[in-house]
């Protein structure tokens, strides 16, 4: 069976969920071979093996942390040369897309980004994408070279499929030309303790109607009662009420949770582009004409400062 390279997204060996989803999708088109760059490959290998990685190609070099993206492209290319895979899969993060793009140029292959599903086809893997603010669903394939495909988080449920997951060291030479962009300093983001926005099963977002940073705790309280991530519309972010890293929409994060709750968000096209593929959509807005209500499974026309706290209380009561 053909091998499929899966680029591992991890924090110090703690594998992030989108990678487990990639392994699940990779098994539809071949045998997953994981590529782990950076420290703690042995720890990662256990989780990767449980999810179907037949092999883990591991490399660690200081250059991965000292320079932006390019050294990781060198490493992934080394893995590509070692395996001759049927496809290369990466998570659809900013870095995943950039690594995939540069690899595609080097190996003369096409690239598809932001796939939401993947299946085997007669002429290679077929990727489903959601485009034009999710108003269209397309199916595409790479027609030249080895398909390089990046997949959005929440595109598949990770399935356990125990495999050998043998760790093999990958020899990597980082080219001088890959040391062009120095990472001078790095400030880790402070953890809020809430789930990651793109990975969360439930997202509660606040918009213009929240009317001030001081009111966002109302949104956070609902999120915490549901174990959800907190999102914000661009209007709320531009007003400085919530950090840009929490922005949902075309220029922020694109989310596809089981449940999306929009509070005080009118639903401009730019916002819809980032949340329209959510499975269940709920909105709370004073304006019954707000375009968000065209998308909802359930909508409440009302003041979010009345409805959201009442909902939070009810959730807490029901959860006991």
């Amino acid at each position, binding site marked *: 069976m053909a091998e499929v390279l899966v680029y591992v997204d991890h924090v110090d060996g703690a594998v992030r969920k989108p990678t487990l989803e990639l392994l699940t999708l990779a098994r539809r088109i071949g045998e997953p071979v994981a590529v782990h760059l950076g420290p703690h490959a042995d720890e990662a290998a256990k989780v990767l093996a449980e999810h179907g990685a037949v092999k883990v190609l591991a490399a660690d070099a200081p250059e991965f942390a000292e320079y*932006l993206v390019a050294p990781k492209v060198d490493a992934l290319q080394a893995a590509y040369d070692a395996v001759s895979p049927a496809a290369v899969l990466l998570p659809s993060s900013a870095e995943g897309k*950039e690594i995939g793009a540069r690899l595609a140029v080097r190996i003369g292959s096409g690239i598809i980004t932001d796939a939401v599903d993947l299946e085997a086809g007669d002429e290679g893997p077929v990727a489903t994408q959601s485009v034009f603010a999710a108003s269209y669903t397309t199916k595409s394939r790479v027609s030249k070279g080895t398909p390089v495909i990046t997949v959005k988080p929440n595109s598949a449920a990770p399935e356990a499929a125990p495999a050998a997951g043998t760790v093999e060291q990958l020899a990597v030479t980082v080219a001088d030309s890959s040391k062009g962009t120095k990472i*001078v300093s790095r400030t880790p983001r402070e953890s809020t303790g809430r789930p990651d926005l793109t990975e969360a099963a439930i997202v509660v977002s606040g918009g213009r109607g929240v009317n001030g940073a001081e009111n966002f705790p109302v949104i956070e309280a609902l999120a915490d009662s549901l174990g959800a991530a907190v999102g914000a519309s661009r209007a709320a972010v531009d007003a400085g009420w919530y950090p840009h890293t929490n922005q949902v929409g075309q220029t922020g994060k694109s989310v596809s949770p089981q449940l999306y709750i929009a509070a005080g968000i009118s639903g401009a096209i730019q916002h819809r582009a980032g949340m329209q593929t959510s499975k269940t959509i709920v909105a709370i807005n004073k304006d019954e004409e707000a375009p968000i209500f065209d998308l909802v*499974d359930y909508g409440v026309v009302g003041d979010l400062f009345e409805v959201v706290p009442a909902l939070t209380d009810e959730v807490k009561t029901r959860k006991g």
Partner: protein
Amino acid sequence: MSLRIVVCVKYVPDATGDRHFAEDLTVDRDDVDGLLSELDEYAVEQALQIKEAADDAEITVLTVGPEDANDALRKALSMGADKAVHVEDDDLHGTDALGTSLVLAKAIEKTGYDLVVCGMASTDGTMGVLPALLAERLNIPQVTQLSEVSVADGKVTGRRDGDTASEQLEAALPAVVSVTDQSGEARYPSFKGIMAAKKKPVESLDLEDLEIEADEVGLEGAWTKVEDAAERPARTAGTIVKDEGEGGKQLAEFLAGQKFI
């Protein structure tokens, strides 16, 4: 010596319009108005600020696209770019990201450059890979996804805000930069800027000028193929209730019914 800045911009269908696919599964450009991609306005803005901070700099705005794409160039010129290059060729119809990066890279080399500035993504394809593709093709550093950028002493520095960390980056010129919508509001063209733009030079190039064969680009030369595009079925109308004191409770009831609570 003059700092040569090239800003890559894209002419895109208006996202607030009714966007759809043509029969050949390329983006239908006839039925919806086009404009300069909003995210590229941030790139033009940062280029202008870099120029303003430099002793001597010149901004060339570059696009690949059909005749109408000229509108995007005019907008950038009216904001303050100095000149424009328009790559236009019938054989470019249907070119994908890899093909576009090939054309842009050749045009950038022909124009001459010290710094290439791009938006973080286009507002139509939204792939966000073009800056990395250009860095690879031009074999120069990529300093991408910046929310802050500055150029001094032959170096570009900037801040990249990622999911898990915020990084301070540095590279020697020449380099490819991409900026996010957090980099700073784009200026509106002034009346004077709009009038001045009419007189600024727009150079037109075709594939022959760039020594690119027709079969390397276009729909036939694309590295990817769209096999099917289907309009997403409209969502069935949801339940909408008016809050008369019970809205929160009713919503909780709905969420419980869906097993979210």
